[in-house]
């Protein structure tokens, strides 16, 4: 893999910044979903994004790894563009293959898990490291087994996804993202599709990742998780960041009336 160029200096960003979003705009046709969103996530920290449905928080998350193309603003992941190559003052659009290469460093966990149903759990974890990073199969397998132990599913290595509960599937999906050694992990409402009694096991895994210092951006409805784990809480509504800051302070003393109203409804 080519050494990634980092443009931290050229944009005046601290070299420890993992995700730098400035004035992100995104529209679908005439509907503007993101109206200038700012977010800075330092390396090793956890940012939780909360907000009512339709506030643009999932769209914003998908802009970070260029699943959605932005219409305006500056989005840098570890000081580089995901979908473009910077040359002088010009951004050259990259080919889908080149974008995928850069996305390999950005893990993503989906609301609907999106495990590969025709592969066993172990095959799900080994596929990308072997085919994308060209790791030897034995090495990738050993790492996959280690990751499965970490999420408490070592005995399920030969099961197919549909034989697992939702919570187990989501833990496998997290392990699959970790198998690529990502620089940052994005979570798109990882517990929203789960039965209430299965939410806890997924949150436990995510808490342990946060303790290990993995950089995470989490779109979630779990205020309790955000309060306990997040270094930074972001409240989005109507395509803008209404308020952000220390989660405990923000939950105890929301400054904006919209935040106060939202928290009153979900707490």
């Amino acid at each position, binding site marked *: 893999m080519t050494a990634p160029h980092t443009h931290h200096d050229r944009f005046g960003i601290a070299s420890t910044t993992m995700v730098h979003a400035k004035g992100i705009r995104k529209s679908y046709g005439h509907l503007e979903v993101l109206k200038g969103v700012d977010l800075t996530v330092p390396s090793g920290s956890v940012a939780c994004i909360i907000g009512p449905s339709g506030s643009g928080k999932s769209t914003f998350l998908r802009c970070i*790894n260029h*699943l959605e193309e932005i219409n305006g603003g500056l989005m840098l992941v570890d000081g580089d563009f995901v979908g473009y190559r910077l040359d002088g003052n010009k951004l050259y659009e990259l080919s*889908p*293959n080149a974008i*995928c*290469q850069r*996305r*390999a*460093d*950005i*893990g*993503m966990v*989906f609301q*609907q898990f*999106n*495990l*590969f*149903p*025709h592969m*066993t759990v172990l095959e799900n974890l080994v*596929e*990308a490291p072997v*085919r*994308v*990073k060209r790791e030897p199969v034995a090495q990738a397998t050993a790492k996959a087994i280690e990751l499965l132990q970490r999420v408490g599913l070592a005995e399920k290595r030969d099961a*197919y*996804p*549909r*034989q697992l509960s939702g919570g187990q599937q989501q833990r496998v999906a997290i392990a*699959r*993202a970790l198998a*690529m050694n990502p620089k940052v992990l994005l979570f798109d409402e990882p517990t929203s599709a789960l039965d209430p009694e299965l939410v806890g096991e997924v949150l436990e895994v995510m808490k342990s990742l946060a303790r290990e210092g993995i950089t995470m951006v989490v779109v979630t409805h779990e205020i309790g998780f955000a309060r306990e784990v997040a270094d930074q809480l972001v409240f989005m509504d109507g395509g803008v960041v209404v308020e952000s800051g220390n989660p405990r302070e923000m939950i105890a003393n929301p400054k904006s009336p919209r935040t106060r109203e939202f928290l009153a409804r979900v707490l």
Partner: protein
Amino acid sequence: MTGNQPPGPVGKIDPEKLTIVPLRHPWRWVAVALVLVSVAAMVRSAISNPEFQWPIVAQHLFNPLILNGLWQTILITVVVMILATLGGTIAALMMLSPSKLLSVPAAVFVWFFRGTPALVQLIIWYNLSIVVKDFTLWLPGLGTLYSVSTNDVMTPVVSAIVALSLHESGYMAEIVRSGLRSVNKGQYEASACLGMKPSLALRRIVLPQAMRMIIPPTGNETINLLKTTSLVSIIAVGDLLYSAQSIYARTFETIPLLLVVSFWYLAVVSIMSVGQFYLERNFSRDEHRSNPGITKAILGNLTKIGRKEALA
């Protein structure tokens, strides 16, 4: 429920002793009887009617001319199916392309070759030399590099393969397209987020899942095609039907030879169905905990009469 049952002590039922009386299906047995009678009548007529000339059927079953025709039929089917799968997949990928410059020509291709009868296409390709006299490779500055007469290239077999491949490609394109569209969008996104290139994701993630939707109709198409190849007999390709026709044109043993032909078509279709069964099973490994063999699967269906299927 009738009144003449001995009245038991009211409210004194032992739940352990309750039994369920299954619902009877008397009309189902009437239908079975009717079917059996008609089958018996047909078998009897087939055996006793001398016009079927069974000894002649047996005599021609392994006639070298017939076997050669069978070989031609199988060969054309296999070659056409391979070409049609390739052509159909390319057309399907083009139809799914966001670029109109690719999707519209592919749609027109499918519209044309699916919309005209196979027989008509067959005759057109066979008579191509009326329109195109020669195939010529001509490059500016270099002149004619290579030229060959159309009649030398478009032999009956080649015309048959070209015509049927194009016709079948139209159908395969639709089958592959619907198979690819059946795969959840999340699968594309998950592979992209793991750094998989679109071509790798297609090969390793999307196609294996699409195969489940693609194989059953493709099996049907192959069986259909095997029988459609009998059309090539009209442009004098020595297939199974043509070989039989050439025999009964001399001997007038029309029905026995057509029975021979039917026997071989049925034999090949049966073998293909077994192959399709195992292919389908291979691509849905994750759906079955225990995979029954083919005999068990068929017998299991036959014995289902009179019983409700238990949902596993």
